């Protein structure tokens, strides 16, 4: 719904602008620059920096553009003498106590104060008195502080209160000695807190791990996508020479706005870990030794061909990470299937596979992340959302702040900084049942009633409680409703049953459905056929072993691509399988003591930070990541490596031409034809598994994050460490 247009005059030129907005919003849209510090389009207005003062007809004083609403016939002068005088006055005041730190300040070259001092500041200072200083605070391992530089714009404070929903920083004191702090030695711990680094217009809050390493103008900027969760947050990698120096957000209004999580920002440090695998390794005479690429590829191909000839249907197992690039997934699946090996899977955090035959072509996520904001009723099932996908939690918070009803059914309680209508604490055992009770409650008044055989199943359940009814009603009453299932669901012993219920609930309440998946490219893994029950593009195929089955057996050959046992939910089982299998081949960026002990062939991988590729996020958006870095001599790209192995294995070369386009077309077509599955197979219903305790760890999601030194020093990581002890 567009606002009515009005006419205003800015610097002697007439413009038609939408009413109901502040002057600075209008001028920003028109490309007319008004200087500012405290104003930020995503934060509330405070008008305290006084930099955006402009001359407005009929007003004696200059008025702040950020706090002045446009009105019909308004006459504005942004660069008149009065406007400039006011702006220059502010600049002079800001500089009297601001330390002359530019030579030692990281913000230099990308500093809003520098830029405006250049245009609005005096050549010489008239302030010949001692400047005031403010004490620094330790906000944790991610954000450095130089509070003397702070101009008290309070963007960081407002970020905490409004975006994170957790007021961690405040303005302590009064007057000249006001300082931004947590006050009593607390750190700033919210998973989005790193964004304060970006929004701080001066060098008061900076990137701590990056501190003192480089100058901004020495860095190249490459677009990329986060490889750590299924959101697909857009980022810029800042690179100098051959090294990534830091990461900042790239604005994508549909996915991550102008934010990234701390995990997205700081995980990359893990790629510089000491245990990086740089050359291929081959076990010769019992010891794992360095080898050439030739040797390693040869050895691996030999094994593959031998096993192909033996027609060892169940002798080969291939696991792949769900955070692998699309092309690599495609080639890996192609390699294995062409050799006749069908035991291929990426789902190493899943334990219930009874619903495999009911799997959608690729995991459901009906909407794009930004559309969550418009939802009026959201039910979140089995998710520690803030830890699993900080940016999705952010969108849910946005919806909640605008009055959406948010309900949870979850094993454990965790803290959220928005109002929650109902939090059904189910524990492990009753997660599925509680969801079923909401389904039962929903069916009562539903327009789209459930098939009778499903109703029979539900009738066997107890009566839903008030909470269940409230949730059901909330979903039904709102046209824009959304069901979100989290990673804890995915790893649940009754995952298939839960998913069935979700599908049914989505049908009954006419809600959109979204399943979070592990890693950055589970959608890609499905589409490229890195699953035992389907080939690429959803073609059915001879059934192979699933991930859990793979890990509970010994094999003649087990291949791990982009995986280390720590990534696996049943890591102990996988360890045993590795030990017990005849040949173990690992493709990994890293080498661990365990793998050194047990692998037979090891291939170094480039991480997604160092190689070009594409991920498909949960919503089916294909996005490229673009940085190609040279590593050790002769280190081929991952794609190149796989192609060489395929060639050496005497297989026809696959074509990667237009693969992305083909997949995009496939996604669009499939999305349009997907129906909700109104089925609960017997075996799914009858699943009785043991429940293992699963919890989400924010900074333990993959091998790179696990090795990021800054992240491992955060409160979250340390408390997890204490828990594990």
């Amino acid at each position, binding site marked *: 719904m567009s606002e009515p247009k009005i006419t205003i005059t800015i610097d002697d030129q007439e413009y038609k602008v939408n009413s109901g907005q502040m002057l600075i919003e209008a001028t920003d849209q028109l490309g007319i620059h008004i200087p500012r510090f405290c104003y930020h389009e995503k934060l509330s207005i405070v008008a305290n920096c006084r930099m955006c003062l402009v001359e407005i007809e009929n007003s004696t004083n200059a008025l702040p553009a950020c706090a002045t609403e446009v009105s019909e016939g308004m006459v504005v002068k942004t660069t008149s003498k009065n406007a400039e005088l006011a702006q220059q006055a502010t600049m002079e005041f800001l500089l009297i106590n601001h330390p002359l730190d530019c030579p030692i300040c990281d913000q230099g070259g990308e500093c809003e104060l520098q830029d405006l001092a250049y245009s609005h500041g005096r050549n010489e200072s008239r302030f010949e008195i001692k400047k005031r200083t403010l004490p620094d605070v330790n906000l944790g391992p991610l954000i450095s502080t130089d509070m003397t530089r702070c101009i008290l714009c309070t963007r960081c404070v407002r970020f905490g209160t409004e975006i994170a929903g957790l*007021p961690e*920083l405040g303005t*302590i*004191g*009064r007057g000249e000695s006001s300082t931004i702090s947590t006050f*009593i030695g*607390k750190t700033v711990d919210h998973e989005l807190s790193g964004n304060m680094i970006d929004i701080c217009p001066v060098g008061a809050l900076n990137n701590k791990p990056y501190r003192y390493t480089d100058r901004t103008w020495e860095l190249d900027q490459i677009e990329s996508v986060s490889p750590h969760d299924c959101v697909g947050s857009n980022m810029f990698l800042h690179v100098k020479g051959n090294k990534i120096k830091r990461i900042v957000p790239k604005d994508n209004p549909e996915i991550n706005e102008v934010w990234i999580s701390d995990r997205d920002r700081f995980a990359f440090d893990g790629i510089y870990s000491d245990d990086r695998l740089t050359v291929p390794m081959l076990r010769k005479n019992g010891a794992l030794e360095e080898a050439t690429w030739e040797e390693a590829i040869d050895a691996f191909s030999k094994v593959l061909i031998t096993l192909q000839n033996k027609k060892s249907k169940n002798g080969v197992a291939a696991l792949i990470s769900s955070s692998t690039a699309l092309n690599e997934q495609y080639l890996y699946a192609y390699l294995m299937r062409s050799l006749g090996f069908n035991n291929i899977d990426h789902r190493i955090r899943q334990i219930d596979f009874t619903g495999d035959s009911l799997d959608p072509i690729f995991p459901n996520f009906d909407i794009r992340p930004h559309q969550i904001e418009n939802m009026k009723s959201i039910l979140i099932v089995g998710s520690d959302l803030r830890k699993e996908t900080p940016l999705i939690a952010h969108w849910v918070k946005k919806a909640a702040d605008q009055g959406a009803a948010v309900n949870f059914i979850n094993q454990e309680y965790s803290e959220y900084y928005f109002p929650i209508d109902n939090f059904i604490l189910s524990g492990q055992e009753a997660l599925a049942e509680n969801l079923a009770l909401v389904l039962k409650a929903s069916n009562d008044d539903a327009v789209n009633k459930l098939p009778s055989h499903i109703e029979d199943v539900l009738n066997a359940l107890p009566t839903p409680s008030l909470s269940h009814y409230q949730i059901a009603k909330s979903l039904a009453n709102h046209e824009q409703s959304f069901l979100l299932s989290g990673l804890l669901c995915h790893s649940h012993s009754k995952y298939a049953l839960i998913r069935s219920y979700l599908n049914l609930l989505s049908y009954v309440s006419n809600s959109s459905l979204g399943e979070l998946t592990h890693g950055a490219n589970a959608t890609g893994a499905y589409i490229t056929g890195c699953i035992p029950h389907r080939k690429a593009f959803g073609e059915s195929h001879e059934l192979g072993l699933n991930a859990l089955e793979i890990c509970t057996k010994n094999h003649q050959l087990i291949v791990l691509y982009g995986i280390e046992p720590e990534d696996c939910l049943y890591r102990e089982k996988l360890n045993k399988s590795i030990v017990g299998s005849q040949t173990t081949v690992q493709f990994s960026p890293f080498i661990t003591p365990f793998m050194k002990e047990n692998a037979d062939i090891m291939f170094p991988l480039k991480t997604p930070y160092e190689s070009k590729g594409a991920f498909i996020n949960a919503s089916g958006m294909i996005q490229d990541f673009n940085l190609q870095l040279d590593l050790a001599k002769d280190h081929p790209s991952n794609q190149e490596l796989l192609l060489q192995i395929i060639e050496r294995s005497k297989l026809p070369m696959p074509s990667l031409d237009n693969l992305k386009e083909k997949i995009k077309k496939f996604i669009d077509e499939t999305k349009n034809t997907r129906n909700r599955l109104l089925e609960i197979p017997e075996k799914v219903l009858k699943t009785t598994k043991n429940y293992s305790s699963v919890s989400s760890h924010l900074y333990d999601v993959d091998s790179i994050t696990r090795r990021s030194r800054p992240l491992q020093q955060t409160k979250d990581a340390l408390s997890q460490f204490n828990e594990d002890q």
Partner: protein
Amino acid sequence: MSTENTETVELTENIKEKIDTWVAKFPVGKQRSAIIGSLHAVQEHNQGYLTPELMDAVADYLDLPCIYVYEVATFYSMFQTEPVGCNEIAICTNISCMLSGSDEIVHHVEDRLNIKLGETTKDGKIFLKKEEECLAACTGAPMMMVNRQYIENLNIEKVNEILEKLEQQK
């Protein structure tokens, strides 16, 4: 919502009652308005100053983020966030009092107690607060607050009497 860094402290029943009285004055959900009154109560009970533990306890009791309490405690000049002497003297030195000789009173008290404005006597009995606001008793200038009691129309003798009384306290 209290910190894990500091040890927790329990508020007395009496103080909780006082806080409850404050909270009751405001609409439900607006208990943040009770922070100032709560801090007054807590500070008075704690010999005239606030500690991080006490501030956390107030935040906890009111179910608010600690930073809200810290912001208030550090903004308003009646709250002391560092230990101070158990008796507070605040001599007004704003314009009307200045014109009526307040500065002389200040110098006298500083000499007599052997401390400067903002400091506490060695025996911890008297905190000489640096008062820079006007205390709104200008017609009785020069004046001072002693433990929040207004004492107007001061002269050196009157001041000495008061100091002696305070020094004689246990």
